[in-house]
């Protein structure tokens, strides 16, 4: 009898020790998994910068960033990416001018005006808009926009304007929903109508969140690749106007990576670096705005 209980005790001790070992091991596994994303960002930065910066230095930073001519296969070659920077910025600006207001208004509709029954159909529709592959958007743009607007910045902006809608709508809607109901009710009580209350009280209260939504939309637009290639024309020259073609930073990489060598290849990786820096700036302002909106909704 005594013996038996001793055995049981030793057994449970043993189990305990094994259990503690498993706990410690899995704790380490979880930590390492969490650090995988840190490692990924570090590797991405490392590879882009190590391969891109020397090319930038060789071309000359100002010659690269502000050069107006991109002719990588000429002798001597010219590696100025200002046309692509301008193309990216113009096309993105156009996309935001189109997608921003429509997206914010749709978010207002979803958060404040949409009957519940309708919501069940509209929301999945917006989600589907986010799920459609960019090649399908691009193909749709080729078939529908090109006959009217040609391969141009206008086509690209229109298409991207649609593509950023779900991003803007989703975030703006949740920002609007985070505004305390009392704001809206207070405005109503003071005699304002429904839309006056929404646009003069609720929307201003959610402005950092809504702005964050637009900023994320900018990020989506500037990073979009395939759809833009299919409708923008991709001429590597300074943009001439809305109805003329232009090339974006993203398009520059995809179009020439396949055959580039040596300095040309380095210049393309450096183009990726410039794009990456743009995205980092956008991400930072997005985080700052989101922090501001969190503070807003707490007050």
């Amino acid at each position: 009898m005594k013996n038996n209980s001793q055995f049981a005790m030793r057994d449970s001790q043993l189990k305990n020790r094994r259990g503690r070992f498993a706990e410690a091991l899995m704790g380490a596994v979880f930590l390492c998994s969490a650090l995988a994303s840190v490692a990924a960002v570090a590797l991405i930065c490392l590879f882009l910068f190590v391969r891109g910066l020397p090319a930038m230095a060789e071309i000359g930073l100002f010659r690269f960033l502000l050069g107006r001519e991109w002719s990588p296969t000429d002798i001597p070659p010219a590696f100025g990416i200002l046309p692509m920077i301008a193309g990216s910025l113009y096309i993105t600006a156009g996309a935001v001018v189109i997608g921003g207001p429509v997206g914010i208004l749709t978010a207002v509709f979803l958060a404040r005006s949409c009957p519940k029954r309708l919501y069940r159909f509209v929301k999945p529709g917006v989600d589907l808009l986010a799920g459609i592959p960019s090649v399908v958007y691009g193909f749709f743009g080729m078939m529908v926009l090109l006959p009217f607007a040609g391969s141009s910045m206008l086509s690209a902006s229109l298409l991207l304007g649609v593509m950023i809608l779900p991003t803007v709508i989703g975030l703006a809607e949740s920002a609007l929903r985070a505004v305390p109901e009392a704001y809206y009710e207070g405005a109503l009580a003071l005699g304002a109508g429904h839309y006056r209350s929404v646009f003069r009280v609720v929307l201003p209260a959610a402005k950092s969140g809504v702005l964050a939504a637009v900023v994320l939309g900018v990020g989506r637009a500037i990073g979009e690749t395939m759809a833009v290639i299919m409708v923008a024309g991709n001429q590597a020259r300074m943009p001439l106007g809305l109805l003329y073609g232009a090339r974006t930073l993203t398009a520059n990489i995809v179009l020439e990576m396949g055959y580039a060598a040596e300095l040309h290849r380095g210049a393309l990786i450096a183009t990726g670096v410039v794009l990456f820096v743009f995205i980092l700036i956008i991400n930072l302002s997005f985080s700052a705005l989101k922090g501001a909106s969190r503070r807003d909704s707490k007050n």
Partner: protein
Amino acid sequence: MKKQKQKLTEKAFAVLTWGAAALTLGTLAFLIAFILIRGIPHLKPSLFAWEYTSENVSLLPAFVTTAEITLLSLLIAVPLGVFSAIFLTEYAKRGNKAVALVRLTAETLSGIPSIVYGLFGWLFFVTSLKWGFSLLSGAVTLSIMILPLIMRSAEEALKAVPDTYREGAFGLGAGKLRMVFRVALPAAMPGILAGVILAVGRIVGETAALIYTAGTVAQIAPSPMASARTLSVHMYALSSEGLFMNESYATAVVLLLLVAGINALSGFIAKRLGGKGERQGGE
């Protein structure tokens, strides 16, 4: 007089908001109808032939490749993402420096454009590790791309599990590990699954990150180290060649249906199986 003006502006803003929503949905409806009407008549059996030739432009090899790459990417990203989420929600103490760093990097990853992933995958996996254009290079690149998505959905799902579950498990004498795998994870499963399915949607729709990692060969890859193109890459190749417009439409139909199905499934799982815990957590 003033009242009338007020009424008018109310009306104007009503028109504006309803109009914007109608425009958004109208564009979606137009896109879907356009692709379906032009594409469905061209869905011929030859499009689903086992081998791709320049005559049948079969999409079946691309379809198989899409499934393979999806599976491979999930195999890497799901454990990593779920384990990270477990670390963030169950293990990390408040104010842990690692948590802030992980959050920051995950947010950075989710903002990086797919072409930058493609560029990185090409620099690292294809050339530095010498994996060449291969399923493996493509899948690993995509697994980094979907990692933040899986992390975030798993984290939110775990956060939505009520603390009473955990306390109950501890009260019954379960260790932390047992609590995580037997109580917290099962309760969070629907949310995690919904996120994984969304990630599948991203993989299916991805093109830019794959062109220079998995390559563009139209075949069913004989090994993970061989190049092959997914459905989206196939679609891009077809439409940019411009020779097979009808087949492009048909391929677009298949892609669209696939993505719509994936979206519906994810929404369904999140809603039906999500239970009350998740809804509460979301508000």
